């Protein structure tokens, strides 16, 4: 029942910003559904194949901001072949044809062509913001089109994309009239940039708050840019190599000191570690520090830098920080909420410099810790139990022991108890990635305790179907489940096929599921696309249902089989 006119409800709904909440609002009744859909401006689509652009446009005519994700998460680790899918072009084409006034497009793990970028840049007059994360398929020519044609561009944010760099011309394509930039991040580009054009662009962008440079931007340019943009909040330094006795360095020190608003610092793609002292003046205000691309920074220099960062909330670092360094973090960064420790030598001699000790130290010193990504040499149950006690607030807990089936080195036991402690203690845990030697037991714990769990990543674990069953039965809020190299077979897969409709997707590779099992799922659940990815095209020759399936990806969808799958993908 509505006691209010639609406009009032609409106004009320404006305050409801989270996608989940808005989705819930739209389910209340028909009139709320209608009001909600006309007033909806931001839409998030976690799997671009779950819905079609046409249906999106039909339902949300007021759409201004679209977020799309393409490939499954394991594509990040080379498990999904190159041209599997996730093309953004059809979306842009459909949106361009419609009357949608798109202003913001955020894409993750999608294939973006120069053609799409060009079409995008020419089709939406008010286009303001382009964010591309882990995408591929475009070159700097596409960026040039965006720069040249989007007159009101505010944000161009490129994060970890594979871009074919045709060298610096694209920056010059920003017209002189473009003064609206708020955020510019091209750190992932590998080629040269036109430094003069960059300086002029920054000079005429008084609202610029976030600037992340690539390696090709040398120190003297950095100094000039900082002089022109002391209002920066987020800075990504490209090259930080210089002679500490030079004039440039002195100027840099002065410039940095003027940047009193910087709260986030990243980059250092090339670094001369003995010159970090210029950064100290801004360290005290930093809330986010990302040194995960700076292998040149380690040892005492790194320690010193961290010791200045007392307000840090998020730290991304390489494992050359070592357990000792993590001890320094624990002592210094009392506000720390998120820690990511990446391996500096992932395929090397197996000497990741951090172990369970570092993690325990951080957990003891940083009680606000709620998000972790930790690549380490080894882990013990005792350490995990301690961490669970110290930090019951974990929302994300991703542990990667470089040797994926390594047991607790002290007791030689699997890590079931340790992870069990984590899920039991951290009642709000939403994302979990497991590694190390694990049996079915850990999955029993997960099923029992991880009530809020939404995403689970499993590799080289478990002993039997039971593991998967515990999870499917127990984790009511599970949305994404990705499994590789586990002994889960048809029995687990088929136990409760209805569950998959409540989830976004399920990935299983190198498991025990057979073609017959997958076919069975597909038959019983027409609302799912069950894709078999068969790169070696073995399925062509052997269509036996008992054949084990190498890679299976299933996801719920409202639009049936996709039409753009490559030959080696069969949709059952």
């Amino acid at each position, binding site marked *: 029942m509505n006691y209010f006119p639609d406009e009032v409800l609409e106004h009320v709904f404006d305050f409801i910003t989270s996608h989940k909440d808005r989705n819930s609002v739209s389910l209340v009744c028909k009139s709320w559904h209608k009001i909600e859909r006309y007033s909806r401006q931001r839409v998030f689509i976690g799997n671009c194949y779950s819905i079609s652009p046409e249906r999106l446009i039909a339902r949300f005519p007021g759409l201004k901001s679209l977020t799309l994700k393409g490939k499954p998460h394991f594509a990040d680790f080379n498990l999904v072949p190159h041209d599997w899918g996730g093309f953004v072009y059809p979306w842009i084409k459909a949106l361009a044809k419609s009357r949608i006034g798109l202003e913001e497009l955020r894409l993750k793990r999608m294939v973006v062509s120069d053609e799409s970028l060009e079409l995008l840049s020419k089709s939406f007059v008010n286009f303001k913001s382009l964010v591309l994360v882990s995408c591929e398929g475009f070159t700097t020519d596409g960026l040039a089109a965006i720069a040249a044609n989007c007159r009101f561009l505010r944000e161009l944010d490129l994060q970890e994309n594979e871009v074919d760099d045709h060298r610096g011309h694209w920056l010059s394509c920003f017209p002189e009239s473009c003064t609206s930039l708020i955020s510019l991040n091209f750190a992932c580009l590998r080629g040269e940039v036109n430094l003069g054009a960059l300086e002029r662009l920054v000079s005429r962008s008084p609202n610029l708050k976030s600037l992340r440079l690539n390696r090709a931007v040398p120190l003297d340019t950095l100094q000039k840019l900082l002089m022109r943009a002391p209002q920066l909040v987020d800075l990504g330094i490209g090259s930080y190599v210089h002679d500490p006795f030079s004039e440039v360095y002195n100027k840099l020190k002065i410039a940095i000191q003027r940047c009193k608003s910087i709260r986030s610092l990243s980059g250092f793609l090339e670094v001369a570690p003995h010159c970090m002292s210029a950064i100290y003046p801004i360290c005290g205000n930093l809330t986010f520090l990302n040194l995960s691309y700076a292998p040149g920074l380690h040892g005492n220099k790194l320690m010193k830098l961290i010791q200045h960062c007392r307000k840090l909330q998020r730290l991304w670092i390489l494992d050359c920080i070592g357990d000792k360094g993590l001890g320094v973090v624990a002592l210094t960064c009392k506000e720390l909420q998120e820690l990511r420790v990446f391996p*500096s030598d992932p395929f090397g001699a197996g000497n990741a410099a951090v172990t369970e000790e570092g993690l325990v130290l951080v957990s003891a010193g940083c009680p606000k810790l709620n998000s972790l990504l930790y690549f380490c040499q080894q882990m013990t149950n005792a350490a995990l139990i301690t961490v669970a006690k110290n930090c019951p607030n974990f929302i994300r807990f991703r542990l990667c022991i470089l*040797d994926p089936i390594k047991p607790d080195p002290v007791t030689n036991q699997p890590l079931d108890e340790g992870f069990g402690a984590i899920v039991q203690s951290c009642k709000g845990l939403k994302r979990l990635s497991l590694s190390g030697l694990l049996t079915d037991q850990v999955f029993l714990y997960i099923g029992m305790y991880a009530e809020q769990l939404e995403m689970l990543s499993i590799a080289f674990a478990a002993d039997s179907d039971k593991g998967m069953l515990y999870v499917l039965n127990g984790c009511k809020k599970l949305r994404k489940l990705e499994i590789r190299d586990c002994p889960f077979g048809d029995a687990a897969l088929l136990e409760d096929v209805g569950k998959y409709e409540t989830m976004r997707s399920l990935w299983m590779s190198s498991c025990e599921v057979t073609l017959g099992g997958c076919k069975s799922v597909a038959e019983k659940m027409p609302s799912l696309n069950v894709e078999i990815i068969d790169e070696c095209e073995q399925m062509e020759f052997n269509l036996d249902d008992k054949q084990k399936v190498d890679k299976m990806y299933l996801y719920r969808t409202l639009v049936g089989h996709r039409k753009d799958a490559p030959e080696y993908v069969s949709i059952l």
Partner: protein
Amino acid sequence: MSPPLLGVEEEVQSSVSSPSVECISENGMGLKERNYLGLSDCSSVDSSGVSSNLNLKATELRLGLPGSQSPERETELCLLNLGKLDEKPLFPLLPSKDGICSSSQKNVVTGNKRGFSDTMDGFSEVKGYVYTEKSWMFHEAGSDSESPQSVGHGKYPGNSGVNVILSARSPGVQASVKQDEPANVLQEQPRATNGTSLKQTVISNNNTGAPAAKAQVVGWPPIRPFRTKTLAASSKNNDEVDGKPGPGALFVKVSMDGAPYLRKVDLRTYSTYQELSSALEKMFSCFTLGQCGSNGTAGKETLSESRLKDLLHGSEYVVTYKDKDGDWMLVGDVPWEMFIETCKRLKIMKSSDAIGLAPRAMEKSKANNKKELGYGC
């Protein structure tokens, strides 16, 4: 029909002393595969001796060569948590499993689950899996420590290099090794143990840093390729920029006036000027001895070394270095860390030759010192 077992025979033999080795080798194939089910300290089993009602086949770990069939893995084989997962049927011989488990040594291979496959060309790293698969069946007979756990024998690669395989279940070798290894990765068949092959990273859990295995599991560790590429490029660039060979050794040439040949020192092996100085003294003492007179006895050596020290620290010799700009500077003025980053070459020269050098060096280093105070480095 016993599917071919893969493994490396010679490793086993070299590391195992139990009689089971023979039975492994009896199995005929040149390559043996080892299993590790966590009970692993037990010696390997003589399969021929076991009575058939124990469902041996189920316990055999097999690695299939491409095209071969492998048995399904029995879940009973997971003995690690039998205590907890008591709904699982226990394997008949297991009552003394506790004994087995408790006797497992530190370097027991506990990782089980997966089969793994040796690469065909038999990399030495990928060897000697502990064949413990059936070992617990004979626990009473001989689950002694000399089990074929060639674990911890230092032969195996360190933890991070997982040798192997990729799991396709189908016949045909899939050489999807991530790195450009020359390995022909075998297709691993055994569903006996969940799929992929992890090798004995499991075994290697006690190895602290043996060199990495050559082949790797696709997609492990789970890091975006963008990151690994960027880091690789970063390290290379940092090296180019600093002119250093990288985090490894930092060799610079050391010459001494009057010495017939140069030496090289790795600056990274020292952490203070004092250490470097002592090392140089030792290195070059033989050259100055000629001037000091004969040596021979330890006492005399000491005398000579201290004489050299006097020479070096006294008035006769000074140690200088050439920095990145090409200037010759006096050693000792800048903080050690800065020194090793800028030093390109060392030279021990006579003080008299260094006179012109010193004052300039002092000025430069005074400037340094001022900055140093600023850094607090």
